[in-house]
């Protein structure tokens, strides 16, 4: 019994010493990573976005370019060339189509008239980007956003409105370039983003190309 107690005490002493070592290592790691993080800039970006419908979305529903869109993007630097963050966006597509005849689901009713079509998309994604060039110079970058998107699609004919809302898997490969303006790490930014929102409530996926122009606010 006493031997067991002794063994147990030794074990406790041994554990205590290991714990202290781990604690020191963890504290060192935290301080090093904090120091490292403070060496780089993070950024918040605001964009004005123009979107061009593509694929079946363009062929089946709206083919007009959307001039109403904006997005916000926050990025934290992991190292000198890589960031991780999240982005939110809003893009409105709309189109007027005269004298359209459309059969409603079920095949029993057909409606004709001037159609007003709308699609509002709201992507919410996590992202990662890789940057070329120097921290304070012109920096081309490429990245990928993955997340979800809420889409509200409506068709109005006369006093009738057909509505379809959905949540989709949202994938957005993108490229861009930052032009520094000489104030801290701020820059003008141009980007090209391909949005692909897959969903199954209509017969096509939402895909469109965004041309974005915005401002990058850099901060420590």
């Amino acid at each position, binding site marked *: 019994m006493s031997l067991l107690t002794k063994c147990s005490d030794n074990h406790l002493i041994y554990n205590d010493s290991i714990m202290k070592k781990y604690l020191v290592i963890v504290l060192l790691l935290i301080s090093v990573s904090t120091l490292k993080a403070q060496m780089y800039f993070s950024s918040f970006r605001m964009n004005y976005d123009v979107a061009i419908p593509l694929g079946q979305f363009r062929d089946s529903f709206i083919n007009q370019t959307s001039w*109403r869109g904006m997005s916000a993007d926050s990025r934290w630097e992991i190292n000198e060339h890589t960031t991780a963050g999240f982005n939110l966006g809003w893009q*409105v597509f*709309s*189109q*007027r189509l005269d004298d359209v*005849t459309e059969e409603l689901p079920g*095949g*029993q*009713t*057909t*409606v*004709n*008239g*001037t159609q*007003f079509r*709308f699609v*509002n998309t709201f992507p919410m994604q996590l992202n990662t980007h890789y940057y070329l060039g120097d921290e304070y110079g012109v920096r081309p970058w490429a990245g990928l956003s993955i997340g979800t998107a809420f889409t*509200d699609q*409506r068709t*109005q*004919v*006369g*006093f*009738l409105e057909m509505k379809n809302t959905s949540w989709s898997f949202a994938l957005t490969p993108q490229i861009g370039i930052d032009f520094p303006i000489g104030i801290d790490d701020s820059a003008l930014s141009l980007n090209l983003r391909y949005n692909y929102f897959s969903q199954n409530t209509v017969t096509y996926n939402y895909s469109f190309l965004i041309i974005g122009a915005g401002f990058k606010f850099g901060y420590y």
Partner: protein
Amino acid sequence: MTAKLIRVSPFMALLLFLAGCYPIGPEFVEDLDATYTVISDLSFDFDDPTRQTYYLADTIIVLTDPNASDTDIEINQAAILERVRNNMNQLGYTEVTDDNEANTSDYLILVSVVRTDNYFTTWWGGGWGGWGGWGGWGWGGCCFFPPVVTTTNIRVGSILVDIVDSRSISSDNNNLPEVWLGIGEGLFRGSQQNINTRLFESIDQMFRQSPYLQR
């Protein structure tokens, strides 16, 4: 004052946001016109070659709201019936004109016109008093203008063309075996000529978008 503005600003932002979500809409009265056709009985065989004749009821049923002050809707009833007749004839049907032989026709056609009044009361001003109790009504609110109350009537008109299967009409049953329904709907606004022109266009369209009626 500042607190009120802060409370109101999310609402204004929401209004701007909603306006931004749907940036286009009808600009002219005609933009709200729509024509519907409904196959009332999906099992009905429109291709049946033995169905060649129709009887067109010579009276249009006109329905207005019970409390409407003006019930004379001044549509050209004879012209509307003539338009329906022309469309049926162009599709290849033959009209049965003798009332006594109406029950021998393959189809019975009934035309009706419905006008409905939709009243909306809107007001603006007086410190947003009506929106969830913010501020107060009238001069005590945040703003310097008195409230303006407006009552608007959105008057909607519809023309209905029913095709009834004459062969299935039973004297024991009050329900008519409707097989097809055409509806032209729009704002009941504009000159009489404008309303009639839109009605005619709608009648033509309901037959145009139903190619299965062709003989």
